[in-house]
């Protein structure tokens, strides 16, 4: 038997575990890079770059003006400093604001014309863009469940699947640049109506330089025949990704939307500042699920994505409903608060979140529930897990306006700490401005329960597996809200993200 290196071992951890842990520490499964010829706009940010992006997308004048307005406002704004994040100063002139695969400069007419390397990239990520490659759904079901995908590679959308089938139902699902060309009246009506240009520093930046993203329009009364999905990939170096997603759900419609993100491993930080706007009209329902797995940096905190995202849903009319579900495992820094404006009477907002921060990751994430209409309801379930040297903060706002009588909120945020070098923080804001509303907030912080770990270990699980199981149990309330495919992926991600956190 090989002698064990005692210094590496702790009571109850055998050599095999140590080796597995070491081999997996800092593993990031999507860290490879696609070698593909890119066309970049010049480095740096100024009005000319904004004009160039607008020109590349063939945008009308009003949109260019809108972008320039955003850019000018951005210049007078400051990067937010209130989050519990240590954000190194970002040199906005050292970034590329537009990068597109060369093969996309002349837009391909169909997926067959798309550079095979691009399609390979997505195949490698497990995202089939070819229509014939339908995602296998529930086993035993007669027909596979279909998911339409819009894939965004650095700055541009490379392809959207199932367009015909969606069009037959009246659903518009395309890249936002295409929507600007094909459906300018819709874009003009809704763009910036939920997240205005000057909403915050990063939203202003996004409004000025957003290059692509997805556009979804569900007509009145339509239940979208399949789940819609956007897959974001940052590939090029020193390139910021600024996508903009706009979803409009007309009266009585229904859609479930999934979003995934990955990036290659790099030593330098990369910026991602996205905006998602959702407009939900009377009786409509939107479910938005995210598995955010941007490159988190290595185990020493080197590299990783800065993820500064503004997501907001506006329940404009009565009985509108929106549900955010997020699994945040990636990014070096996360600054993200998917929010619900509950304007319509009886409208409903839900937020389910798992945020895992390991190694040197920092996450400041949560939600805002702004109750403006009567009898509005919201529910927040947040699970934060910190390991390594990570800092994880839940930040949330529940606001009951005077007119929002008989409204209801329930908030639960639980934090789990693994190791004594990490931090878990809770910063809720609760503002109740009428008496008939009921607001309840609960938060707990604890460590992984030793008894539960012992129980698992006793049954032959190694420590890593045991922790992953306990943590998955801790997250169960959120995991069960995810669509099926995502739930499986998320569960595996929870385990992967915690690799190297024990022992």
């Amino acid at each position, binding site marked *: 038997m090989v002698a064990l290196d005692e210094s590496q071992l702790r009571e109850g951890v055998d050599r095999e575990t140590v080796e597995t842990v070491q081999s997996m520490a800092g593993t990031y499964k999507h860290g490879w890079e696609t070698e593909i010829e890119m066309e970049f706009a010049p480095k740096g940010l100024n009005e000319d770059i904004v004009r160039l992006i607008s020109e590349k997308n063939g945008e009308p004048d009003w949109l260019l003006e809108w972008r320039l307005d955003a850019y000018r406002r951005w210049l007078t704004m*400051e990067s937010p400093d209130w989050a519990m994040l240590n954000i190194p100063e970002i040199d906005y002139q050292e970034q590329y604001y537009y990068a597109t695969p060369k093969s996309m400069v002349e837009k391909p007419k169909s997926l067959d014309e798309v550079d095979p390397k691009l399609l390979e990239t997505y195949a490698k990520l497990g995202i089939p863009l070819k229509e014939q490659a339908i995602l296998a759904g529930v086993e035993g079901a007669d027909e596979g469940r279909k998911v339409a995908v819009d894939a965004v590679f650095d700055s541009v959308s490379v392809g959207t699947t199932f367009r015909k089938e969606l069009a037959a139902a009246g659903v518009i699902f395309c890249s936002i640049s295409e929507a600007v060309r094909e459906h300018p009246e819709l874009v003009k009506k809704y763009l910036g109506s939920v997240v205005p240009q000057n909403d915050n520093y990063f939203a202003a930046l996004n409004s000025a330089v957003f290059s692509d993203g997805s556009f979804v329009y569900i007509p009145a009364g339509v239940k979208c025949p399949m789940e819609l999905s956007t897959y974001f990939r940052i590939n090029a170096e020193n390139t910021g990704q600024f996508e903009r997603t706009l979803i409009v759900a007309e009266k009585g419609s229904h859609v479930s939307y999934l979003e995934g993100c990955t990036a290659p491993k790099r030593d330098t930080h990369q910026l991602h500042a996205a905006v998602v706007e959702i407009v939900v009209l009377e009786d409509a329902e939107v479910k938005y699920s995210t598995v955010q797995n941007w490159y988190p940096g290595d185990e020493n905190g080197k590299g990783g994505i800065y993820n500064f995202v503004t997501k907001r849903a506006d329940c404009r009319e009565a009985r509108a409903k929106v549900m955010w579900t997020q699994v945040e495992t990636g990014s070096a820094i996360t600054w993200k608060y998917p929010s619900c404006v509950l304007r319509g009477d009886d409208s409903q907002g839900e937020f389910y979140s798992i945020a895992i921060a390991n190694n040197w990751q920092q996450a400041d994430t949560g939600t805002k529930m702004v109750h403006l209409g009567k009898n509005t309801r919201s529910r927040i379930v947040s699970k934060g897990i910190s390991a390594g040297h990570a800092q994880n903060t839940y930040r949330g706002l529940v606001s009951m306006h005077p007119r929002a009588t008989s409204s209801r909120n329930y908030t639960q945020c639980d934090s789990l700490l693994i190791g*004594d070098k*990490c931090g878990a923080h809770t910063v809720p804001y609760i*503002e*109740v401005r009428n008496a*008939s509303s009921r*607001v*309840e907030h609960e938060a707990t912080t604890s*460590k992984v329960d030793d008894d539960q770990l012992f129980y698992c270990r006793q049954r032959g699980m190694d420590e890593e597996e045991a922790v992953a199981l306990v943590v998955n149990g801790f997250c169960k309330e959120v995991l069960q809200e995810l669509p099926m495919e995502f739930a499986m992926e998320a569960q595996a991600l929870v385990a992967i993200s915690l690799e190297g956190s024990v022992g």
Partner: protein
Amino acid sequence: MMPRAKLVAQKREAAAALLDGRALPEGGAWATKARNAAEARLREMGLPVKRDEYWRYTDPRRLTDANVQPGKLHAQDDETPVFDAVDRVKLVFVDGVFDASASDAPELAGVEICHLAEAARADLHWARDLFGVLEARGQVPVARPLASLNSAFATEGLLIRVTGKAEKPVSLIYQRKDPAAEALTHHVIRLEAGAELTLLENGPVAARYNQVLEMDIADGAVLHHVRAQGRDHERAGATHLFARLGAEAQFKSFTLSANGALTRNEAVIWLDGAEGSAHIAGTTVGDGAFHHDDTVFINHAAPRCESRQVFKKVLRHGAVGVFQGKILVDQAAQLTDGYQISQSLLLDENAQFLAKPELEIYADDVKCSHGSTSGEIDQSQLFYLRARGVPEDQAKLLLVLAFLAEALEEIADPVLAEDLRGKMEAWLKRRA
């Protein structure tokens, strides 16, 4: 200038404007040193403004304005003053100025009581290790400029040193005579190892007041602090309580607030020694133009300590209740038990409850939780009582008192607890 730098400049300008032409009080070496340092801190921080995150829910203008808004004096009624059931050493302040003639002789075995004005004239005093020192420590992680303003200019207050078990409570009584007086009081309380004291405070103080309490509770010492703020409806006040606890020290502080146009009570507690225990609690009953803010910061800096925050607010007719509470657990503070609850009962549609209950935790083996709720009287509970023949007014009163009870349980002495419960009931009945 970018917005944040501009705000800092504005705050500093406001502080400079307030300080210009205002000389620090004369005093001995230690006091002068402490006051100069406090003034420098204030200039650096600037005056608080509503745009400060820390003043998000309370507008500090009435507290920082150059002019004091006069407040009507409360008409005396036949209600017995608070704490009258307790045998105590009474020390009386009138409009924030110590009145020896109206006070009991400050003599109590094991307790040394000294007037700040007098001690500040001496070249040396034990209080120099604490006066302005705990306040300065309390400026991190957030600035509390009003407390520095107090350290710089306060000449009134008592320095109390306890070496044994005080046989009677020390009771500070704040009376008002002048409708427009402003009071700055600064007390320093030092409990030596193993000492015990009950400190009582009550009365409306002044039309506007700024009060600082610095408390040093050494190893194994026990300090009970009970205060009743109330009566005069038009007064405005800010209080800061800074307390440092040694190993196995215990601190319990309870505040009842009724009336008052604007009250901001800040408490900053450091659990510096292992197995210390701090309980901060309060009940607030607000009716009409009333803004009450409890801002609490508890820092667990040593292992195996316990802390509790229990705050209950009953509000109506436009009354606003604010709670900002934070538990900070350092990496060294393993096995911390931290609990925090803030609840409000809103009796009509105009009342507001604004809360920011925070946890910041850097140690993994801890048990920390907080809860916060807001709502109206539970209709099913009301129905239950009504169904048993309890008239509606009485049923509501019962439910309000039951709601407040959890906070009153934090008062260690049952006589004091019952006294305050009775006062609260009488107040609620009067205003029913």
